[in-house]
C-alpha cells in the first residue's frame, strides 16, 4: 500500500531494467529541450513516447494522469502568452484591449509541446517502474543507500501519515474544535492539528531509527540485495547507444548549420 502510481501490467516495458528506462527518458527530454523547434517535440512524441506507451499497456492511465497535470498549464500558457507575449507583433484576433498574436501562440506551442514530452516521458517511467526496483538499480550503481531508504520509506509513509492527520483532525473536532469561520480562525486551528502530528513524528523517528540501527543500517559493509535487478546485454549496449545518438541528433544540425 504505497502512494505511487505504479501500475503492474507485466508488459515488455515493465520488464526493462530501470536504468534503461531512466536513460531513455533523459535522452528524450534533452533532445526536445536542446532542439527548440516545435516539430522536433512532435516527432519525438510520435516515434518514441506514444509507441512505448502503447506497448506498456498503460496508455489510458498515462493519458488520464498527464491530462490532469498538463491541461491547466497548457490553457494558461496559450491564453497568457497568446495575449501578452512581449515579442508579439502580428495580431490574429482583437477584442478591445485584448489582442492575440501569432508570435505568442507560436511561443506557447513550442513550450507546450516540450512540456507534453517532459510530462509524458516521466509519468511513463513512473507508471512502468516500481520505485523499489528503481532504487535498487540506482543503489547498485553507487547511489548512497540512504537515498533509497528515504525515498522508499516516504512513499510508504505518506498514506499512514495522511490517516494520522485525519485522526487528529477528528479528535480535535470531537473536543469541540470547529473548522468553520474566517481564514484567521482557520489559521489558529493549525496548532492543535500540527502539534500532535509533529510530536507523534518525533516519537516515531526515535523508534524508527532504533529499529533501523538494530538491523545494521549503520553498518559499513558493502550492501547486497535479495532481489536481482533484471538486465541484458542488449540493454547494457543500448544505454550507451541512446545518449550517443541523442548527442549526434543535437550536434549535427549545428555543425551543418541547419539551425
Amino acid at each position, binding site marked *: *500500500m*504505497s502512494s505511487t502510481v505504479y501500475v503492474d501490467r507485466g508488459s515488455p516495458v515493465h520488464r526493462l531494467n530501470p536504468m534503461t528506462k531512466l536513460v531513455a527518458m533523459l535522452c528524450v527530454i534533452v533532445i526536445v529541450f536542446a532542439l527548440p523547434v516545435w516539430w522536433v517535440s512532435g516527432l519525438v512524441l510520435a516515434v518514441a513516447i506514444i509507441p512505448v506507451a502503447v506497448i506498456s499497456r498503460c496508455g489510458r492511465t498515462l493519458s488520464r494522469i498527464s491530462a490532469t497535470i498538463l491541461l491547466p498549464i497548457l490553457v494558461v500558457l496559450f491564453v497568457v502568452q497568446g495575449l501578452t507575449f512581449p515579442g508579439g507583433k502580428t495580431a490574429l484576433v482583437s477584442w478591445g484591449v485584448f489582442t492575440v498574436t501569432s508570435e505568442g501562440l507560436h511561443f506557447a506551442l513550442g513550450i507546450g509541446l516540450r512540456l507534453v514530452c517532459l510530462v509524458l516521458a516521466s509519468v511513463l517511467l513512473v507508471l512502468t517502474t*516500481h520505485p*523499489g526496483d528503481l532504487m535498487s538499480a540506482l543503489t547498485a550503481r553507487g547511489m548512497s*543507500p540512504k537515498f*533509497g*531508504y528515504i525515498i*522508499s*520509506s*516516504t512513499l*510508504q*509513509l505518506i*498514506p*499512514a501519515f495522511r490517516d494520522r492527520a485525519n485522526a487528529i483532525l477528528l479528535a480535535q473536532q470531537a473536543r469541540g474544535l470547529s473548522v468553520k469561520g474566517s481564514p484567521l480562525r482557520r489559521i489558529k486551528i493549525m496548532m492543535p492539528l500540527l502539534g500532535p502530528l509533529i510530536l507523534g513524528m518525533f516519537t*516515531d523517528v526515535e*523508534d*524508527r*531509527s*532504533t*529499529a*533501523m*540501527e*538494530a*538491523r*545494521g*543500517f*549503520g*553498518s*559499513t*559493509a*558493502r*550492501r*547486497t*540485495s*535479495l*532481489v*536481482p535487478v533484471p538486465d541484458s546485454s542488449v540493454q547494457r549496449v543500448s544505454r550507451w547507444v541512446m545518449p550517443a545518438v541523442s548527442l549526434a541528433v543535437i550536434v549535427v544540425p549545428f555543425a551543418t548549420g541547419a539551425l
Partner: protein
Amino acid sequence: MIRLDGVSYAYPDAVRPVLENVSLDIGRGAIAGILGASGAGKTTLAKIMAGFIPAVDGGELSGTVSVDGQGMGDLPLAEAVSRVGLVIQNPFNQISGARYTVREEIAFGLENFGVARPEMQGRVDEVAELLNLGPLLDRSPYELSGGQQQLVAIASMIVLRTPVLVMDEPTSQLDPAGTRMVFDVLSTLRGTGITVVIFEHKLELLHQHADALYVLADRSIVAAGDPTDILADARLAEWHIGSTRYTRAARAAQDRGLLAGLQHLPVSLEQAVAVFADDGGAR
C-alpha cells in the same frame, strides 16, 4: 548468556539515574520476562541490553553488560546489534518501509550487513518456515494486521541470528489475537537456543511462557526467580504490577479464612482450579 553487573544509568543532563545497580544473568536458550510499571525504565533497560545506550542516547552508564562473556561496552553499535536483537513496541515503526514485500523486509538487515544472495535466500526461507510466514512473504508489510507485522518484525531480527533477542513490550499495541500470535512465537523459539528477554505486562501469558521472571521497580531489579513464586509475591501491588485474578481471589479467600493451610498462592488457572477444587469446589 546475557549478564548485567551493577548497571547504573542516567540520561544526559538528568539529575537522578533511571537505573541503579541492576544485575541479572539469563542463561542460554532461556525465556526471561521482565515486569515493571509504566515509567519504571523498561525501555531504557532494553536499550542498554541491546547496546543503544549509551551509544545513541549518551548519558552515564556504569557497570558491565556482557553477552556470552564478551563485554558489550567496547563494541561499536553496528557490532553490538549483531549480538543482541531488539524488537520495539510499535510494529508499525519497526517496519523499515524501505522494502515492498515481507520477503525483502525480512532480508533488509542481511542486505545491510552485506550477506551474499544465496545465503540470504536460505536464511529468509528458514525463518519464514519457523514462524509460519510463508503465505505472507509476497505481501506488502503495510497490508498486514498489527500482530502479523510484529511477527515480521521478530522474523527480521531472528534472521540476523543474534544469540539474544530483546523484546520491549511487543504486544502493547496488539489486540488479544495479535498478542497470542507473538506469545506462540515464544514457544516456537524454545529449543532453537535463542535467549529471549521479554518486557511485558500480561501476567497470565508470561506465566505460561517464561522460564524466569524479574521485577524492575525503584530503579533496580527487586525480585527474580521462578514465575510461580514471583507472581504470588504480595509486593507486586506496591510495585504497581498487580497480580492475576486467581492470586487476588485466593488472597481474599485466605483473608476470609477459607484456605487455611495453603502454602502457595495460585497464579494460573490450573493452579487455581487445584486450590479451589480442594476447598469449596467439586469435591
